[in-house]
Structure formats: structure tokens, C-alpha cells
């Protein structure tokens, strides 16, 4: 015992080293999950508190600065509201007409999913990983592999997917992470490819396995293909920046700039779409081979 106390620095060093290497070898096991859960339990209340304080202070500040314009804005809004009321009636009529036409044409009704609005409370504190933490968790019905989007104008653009859920928080793996792979197609030419993050720190994505005969122009829109079992079809992803041949020369790779600016994003929408378990299992089995 005296030996350990006398040499406690080196003894602790060896113990800590052993702990780190054992937990790295047992990734995502029961023990490591318990330790991670305990760490999260310590940090997240403070993160939520910090986020709430920071948000309220900025709201208060912007409230003061916008007070002067409030009266003017109010008048404008009243006028707009009157205009919208008349437009709303027209829209309702158009919607009814549209539904009738869809039925007539025998089109399948678009699947509608429930959504949950969430606020980003933190991002991965390290440069080696790029995940996002939101203030909604299993208590809000969120599950692993649910797709996450954000509004880009009036359209929904893809942010990523849920990879970890706890009581009141969840972790998103964004599309700019090289760890996430999504099936995509070019909206116009319909050429398919596999999209992932281009680098650990960049803001671009790259599409692999694009047919080398495909003509890809800068500005071509990329959308989700719906394959892979997680993301619904037709969600906006980004625009092509440039294309270049893959290392093997059999395909071409296309750099894509996502619609979402991941440095400025504050709110996201989680789509409560359960993943297609059969497809996911097939992909997992395939990756283990």
C-alpha cells in the first residue's frame, strides 16, 4: 500500500491508460454507455442552463433594439393580415380542387409524418467529430435513425439523422460528417450517388459512385433518393459545386454545397418517420461482410 501511495502518480497513469484502452476496445458496451451517460448527466443541465441564459440575454437585447420599430411593423402586419385573409380563402379552394384532381388521377397521397421542432443546444466540442445536440429526446417520441431537416426558405432541406437519444436530448449526425452516408439523386438528370461529408472539418459533401458519363453542372440540385430506409424521398440536400473523376476512374465524384449553413443553424425539425428496419438490417449486414 505504501508503494502505491509513494508512486501514486505513475500508478494512476497506468490505471487511467488501462481504463482508456479497455473502454476504446469495448466501444458502445454497457460499461462505456454508463460512464458516458453519467458524463452527460453532469454536463447537459449546465449546457441547457447556459443556452437558456444566452438565448434570453440575446432576446432581451434584440427586444430593446427592435422596440422602436415595433409600432411601424404592427401597422404593416395588420395590412398584410387583411391581404392574407383574402388569399387564405382562395388557397382553401385551390387545395380542395387539387385534392379532387389527385383523386381523379389516382395519385398516391403523399405520406405525411408528424414532426417535432427542436432547438440546437450544443455542438460537438471537438474538431474531430461533428455532431449536434438538440433539446428533444425520447420523452418527445424521438427515436434513433429519424431524419432531421431545417427550413431553407419554404422548402425543407436535410440536416442529418438522429444517432443517439436520451430522456430530453438527442444527438444528430449531420450530412457534412464523413460518417453519414445517404442515397441521393440529381433532381434533373436523375443520376444516383452516395453522399457523405467531404472532410472532418469542411462544410462540403461529396457524392461518390456517380456514373462517369453523367453531365453534372455546377448548380445542379441534389435531393434524397429515398433509398436506405431513413430519409424520405425528395428532400433538398444541396447544389453541385464541381465534379471530378474518382481515383479508380470508373465513376465520378461530385462536390456538393449543402443548403443548410451548419455554422448558423439554430432550429431543426425532426421527422417522426420510423426507419425501414429491413433495409437498415440489410445495409448493416452488408457493411459487416
Amino acid at each position, binding site marked *: 500500500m505504501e508503494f502505491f501511495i509513494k508512486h*501514486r*502518480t505513475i500508478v*494512476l*497513469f497506468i490505471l*487511467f*491508460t488501462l*481504463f*482508456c*484502452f*479497455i*473502454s*476504446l*476496445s469495448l*466501444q*458502445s458496451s454497457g460499461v*462505456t454507455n454508463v*460512464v*458516458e*451517460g*453519467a*458524463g*452527460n448527466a*453532469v*454536463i*447537459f443541465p*449546465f*449546457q441547457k442552463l*447556459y*443556452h437558456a441564459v*444566452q438565448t434570453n440575454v440575446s432576446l432581451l437585447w434584440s427586444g430593446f433594439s427592435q422596440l422602436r420599430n415595433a409600432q411601424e411593423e404592427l401597422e404593416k402586419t395588420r395590412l398584410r393580415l387583411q391581404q392574407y385573409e383574402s388569399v387564405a380563402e382562395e388557397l382553401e379552394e385551390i387545395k380542395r380542387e387539387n385534392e379532387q384532381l389527385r383523386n381523379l388521377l389516382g395519385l398516391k397521397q403523399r405520406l405525411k409524418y408528424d414532426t417535432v421542432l427542436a432547438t*440546437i*443546444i*450544443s*455542438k*460537438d*466540442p*471537438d*474538431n*474531430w*467529430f*461533428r*455532431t*449536434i*445536440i438538440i433539446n428533444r429526446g425520447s420523452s418527445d417520441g424521438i427515436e434513433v435513425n429519424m431524419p432531421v431537416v431545417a427550413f431553407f426558405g419554404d422548402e425543407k432541406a436535410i440536416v442529418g439523422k438522429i*444517432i*443517439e437519444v436520451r430522456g430530453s436530448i438527442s*444527438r444528430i*449526425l449531420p450530412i457534412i460528417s464523413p*460518417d453519414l452516408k445517404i442515397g441521393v439523386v440529381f433532381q434533373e438528370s436523375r443520376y444516383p450517388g452516395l453522399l457523405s461529408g467531404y*472532410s*472532418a*472539418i*469542411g*462544410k462540403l459533401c461529396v457524392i461518390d459512385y456517380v456514373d462517369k458519363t453523367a453531365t453534372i453542372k455546377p448548380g445542379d440540385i441534389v435531393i434524397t433518393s429515398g433509398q436506405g430506409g431513413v430519409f424520405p424521398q425528395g428532400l433538398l440536400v444541396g447544389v453541385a459545386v464541381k465534379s471530378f473523376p474518382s481515383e479508380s476512374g470508373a465513376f465520378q465524384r461530385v462536390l456538393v454545397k449543402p443548403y443548410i449553413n451548419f*455554422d448558423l*443553424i*439554430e432550429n431543426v425539425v425532426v421527422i417522426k418517420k420510423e426507419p425501414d428496419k429491413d433495409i437498415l438490417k440489410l445495409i448493416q449486414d452488408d457493411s459487416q461482410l
Partner: protein
Amino acid sequence: MILMYIITGALLLASLIIQGHSSFDVLRIGGVKPDLVFIVVVYFAYSFGSLYGEVTGFIGGLLHDAISNSPLGLLAFPKMALGYIIGFFGRSIFKENLFTVFLLIFFASIAKGVITLILCYLFHQGSLSSITSIILPESFYNALLSPPLFFLFDKIFEQELSREGR
């Protein structure tokens, strides 16, 4: 002494929370942000020796791993190991001046990055391009921030430092 442990814990917690908040992304230069937790760990190792450095590095690294998407131990081990090594030499070798602190953090950050990269290769997935895209810019950024932070920490721990004759 208890007060010092509380302040140490508070500093680690504060740096983790600030570093993880989305508004901190504004400080990204060339896509990287500084590692405040590591600067805190190096400061404690540099000022209070190996034992304090390795324990602070281990706890700070574990918390860092817990809120990051990294496997547990990937960020803790480099911080703990560097805390131990830097604490070995401490202020007796690295005489305190702005330039020494800058160089100390710069090379310590590079060592931390290289260890992380090796662990990524062994237990996760690594890419050599991380040397130019993450390790070098982050090391420079850490080094740039370290002199004012070390000055601030010296003020906070003035009593403790004078008690230990440093």
C-alpha cells in the same frame, strides 16, 4: 485546497460548455475551433505537476468524450498523457514568458493531435489529411489563445502558486 479543486472543476466545466455551444462556432478559423479544455489541462500540469495534470486531463477528457461523439477514452487518453508529461517538467524547465507558453501549447497540441490520430487509426477511422486540416491549425489556434488565458489563470491561482513557491 478544496476551493482549488472546485475552481478546477468549474474551469473544466465552463470550458466544455463554452466550447460545445453553437455560438462558439463563430470563432472557427479555417474550420477549426480551439480546444479550451486542453489549454486548461496543460495549465494545471504546467503549474501544479504531473499528478494534478493527469487527473485533470483524465476527468476533463472523459467529460469531453461523454458529450462528444467520440468513443470513450479517445479524447481522454491524449489529455491525460500530456498532462502527465508536461507536469513532469513544469515551470522548472519551461520558464514563464509569452513565447515559451506559446511554444509549449503549440507542441503539446501537436502531440495531442498525433496521439488522437493514432487512436483514431486503431479504434475508429483516421485520415492523414487530419494533420493539415485539424492538428496544425488547432495547435496554432490553441497557442495563440494560451498566453492571455495563462495570464488569467495565474491571477486566479495566485495564492496557490505562491504557496507552492512557483
